[in-house]
């Protein structure tokens, strides 16, 4: 069948489609002449522009809400020694029932973790409130993790008041990149109102008409609020957050709260700002995993060398060198543009990331507020090798684990639209880094003592096997295997099945001994 014949399976391009293209092009032309008007969309309402220039920092009023969120979270992470070093602030800017308070902070070098609280009047109304990207020494600070802004730089706001709690405490993990020991912080909160009913999380919102907004942090659920004036109800889901819509411009060009209100969905109400002239660094010496010896192991057809590991409560640096006969296939330019610095091509796999996991299999970068995010980078090494680096920021509860797993990351079959290779299994551990600590009073260093092979029981495992098959496999279609079933590793071993020499056979590591590695400072 020819291409033309295939095209003939479809209705011909209708006139109204062509008309819409014409109209849109005219609209674009008009837009360029600053005469913006959408064809389909309802025109935007008049800006409600009651921009209040707010009082500066230190307007500590009687209604202070002092949250211990940071301290409590650190204790939950079993990082008591850091919890003791958290600085109490209780700096509040409150007026007319709208308040922003900075409750606590902890700072170590470039890492600054703030705990602050937003509050709205208890007048029965529901407001949307969020914290704008903070300024450190006059420059916009970046978050360790994309939690309060999505990758479009849309601010997240939370429903407060009415059926929702009137206040909400937030943890802000910032990368401050300040050269100074003392740094200044400018924190702003914006408060919005909406005439749309906000549906509480407990209500079944699926059937609401004509359109219910979900905005729960999932990019797939992301909807630009500014673009949907026809939405009749707003419904946060799960984490109870909304995005304010695309706002990169006003975030990057300074803070312009009026822009937030320029929509019929949510109108600007007010801003509260806190300026803290100096935040001091105050963290005493912390536990460090520090090892610069080279340790090599193999995984599949690759030789991997750990060239260095350094991990503190706040930072992680792990450097691997990957080598392979014949080198590595490179991603094409588009893929590299799409996933810059995060992807490595591996023969037999479309591409993959290497990730880090705690001993229970949970990822180190699990997007919790403080528990750390890790970004992987790839660069060319010598002689066709690849240098794979992990750089992490966050608070890592070092004293609570003694092993780190290097695992291939993948996207689940449910996310097949993104096309990540689903043949990798979360249990397909590349290596286990064994760590040891010295909790004695004289030393706070720890070290990497060994890299060892994966063993059953290290982490929850799913493998694949057929009823009559000899082996169990990590890949469901290894060697063209058909009708494989996902079973646990324990079931496979109980059935007497050994590991497949093809898809698991290359999964051996050279076990190192502690004697090989001396403590490095």
């Amino acid at each position, binding site marked *: 069948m020819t*291409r033309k014949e295939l095209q003939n*399976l479809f209705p011909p391009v209708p006139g*109204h*489609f062509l008309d819409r293209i014409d109209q849109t092009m005219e609209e*674009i032309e008009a837009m360029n002449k600053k005469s913006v008007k959408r064809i389909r969309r309802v025109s935007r309402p008049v800006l409600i522009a009651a921009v209040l220039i707010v009082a500066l920092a230190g307007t500590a009023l009687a209604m202070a809400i002092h949250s211990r969120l940071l301290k409590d979270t650190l204790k939950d992470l079993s990082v008591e020694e850091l919890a003791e070093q958290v600085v109490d602030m209780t700096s509040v800017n409150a007026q007319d029932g709208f308040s922003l308070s900075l409750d606590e902070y902890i700072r170590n070098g470039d890492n600054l973790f703030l705990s602050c609280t937003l509050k709205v009047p208890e007048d029965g109304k529901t407001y949307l409130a969020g914290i704008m990207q903070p300024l450190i020494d006059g420059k916009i600070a970046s978050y360790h993790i994309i939690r309060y802004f999505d990758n479009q730089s849309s601010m997240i706001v939370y429903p407060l008041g009415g059926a929702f709690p009137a206040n909400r405490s937030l943890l802000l993990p910032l990368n401050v990149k300040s050269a100074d020991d003392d740094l200044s912080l400018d924190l702003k909160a914006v408060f919005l109102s909406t005439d749309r009913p906000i549906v509480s999380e407990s209500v079944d919102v*699926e059937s609401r008409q004509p*359109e219910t907004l979900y905005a729960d942090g999932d990019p797939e659920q992301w909807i630009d609020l500014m673009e949907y004036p026809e939405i009749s109800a707003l419904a946060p889901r799960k984490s109870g957050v909304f995005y304010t819509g695309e706002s990169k411009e006003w975030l990057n060009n300074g803070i312009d709260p009026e822009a937030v209100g320029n929509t019929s969905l949510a109108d600007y109400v007010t801003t509260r700002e806190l300026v803290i002239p100096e935040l001091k660094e105050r963290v005493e010496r912390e536990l460090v995993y520090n090892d610069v010896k080279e340790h090599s192991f193999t995984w599949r057809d690759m030789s991997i060398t750990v060239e260095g590991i350094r991990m503190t409560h706040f930072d992680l640096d792990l450097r691997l060198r990957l080598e392979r006969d014949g080198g590595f296939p490179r991603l094409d330019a588009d*893929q590299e543009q*799409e996933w810059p610095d995060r992807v490595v091509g591996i023969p037999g796999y479309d591409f993959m990331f290497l990730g880090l996991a705690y001993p229970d299999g949970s990822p180190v970068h699990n997007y919790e507020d403080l528990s750390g995010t890790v970004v992987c980078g790839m660069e060319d090494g010598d002689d066709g090798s690849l240098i794979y680096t992990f750089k992490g920021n966050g608070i890592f509860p070092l004293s609570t684990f003694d092993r780190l797993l290097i695992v291939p990351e993948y996207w689940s079959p449910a996310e097949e639209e993104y096309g990540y290779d689903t043949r990798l299994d979360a249990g397909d551990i590349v290596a286990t880094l064994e760590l040891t600590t010295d909790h004695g009073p004289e030393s706070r260093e720890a070290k990497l003592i060994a890299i060892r092979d994966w063993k059953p029981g290290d982490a929850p495992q799913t493998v694949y096997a057929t009823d009559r098959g000899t082996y169990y496999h990590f890949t469901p279609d290894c060697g063209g295997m058909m009708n494989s079933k996902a079973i646990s590793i324990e079931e496979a071993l109980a059935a007497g099945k050994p590991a497949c020499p093809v898809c698991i056979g290359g999964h051996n590591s050279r076990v190192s001994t502690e004697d090989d590695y001396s403590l490095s400072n």
Partner: protein
Amino acid sequence: MTESVFSERVRALQGPLWRIAWAILRNSADCDDAIQETLLRAWNRIGSLRDETAFDAWLMRILVNECKDILRRRARRPQTPMEAAPELTAPEENTALRDSIFALPLSLRLPLLLHYMEGYSVKETARMLHLPETTVHWRLHAARKRIRDEWN
């Protein structure tokens, strides 16, 4: 890219844009909305297009994303009879093949149509769908196999 060049490139693509929108949405009113939103988004972000030779793939990618957004919104907003627009009639020939194609999941249908119907290379299709080329190859294979199996 100037506005006139943008307009020219868009008009040259109107057939593929329509067919891909239709292949995803199967509703002409939604297709109209999708193309409008696509063109507005594309023009607003034209500065992010580094390589003008990649315009077709870039625009098609925005269209596909917009169509998927519409699908998601539609899933949450059951259509009432009032909202349903009168649909176009497709040609009578090869209805069985058309039904087979539309029975494919979107993840297989789109690569199939972009590659075989619109003539984009695997590399271009991969670029449009945010997929690795090998995944596109696999999906083309899977789509062909499903249609062949159904016909057999």
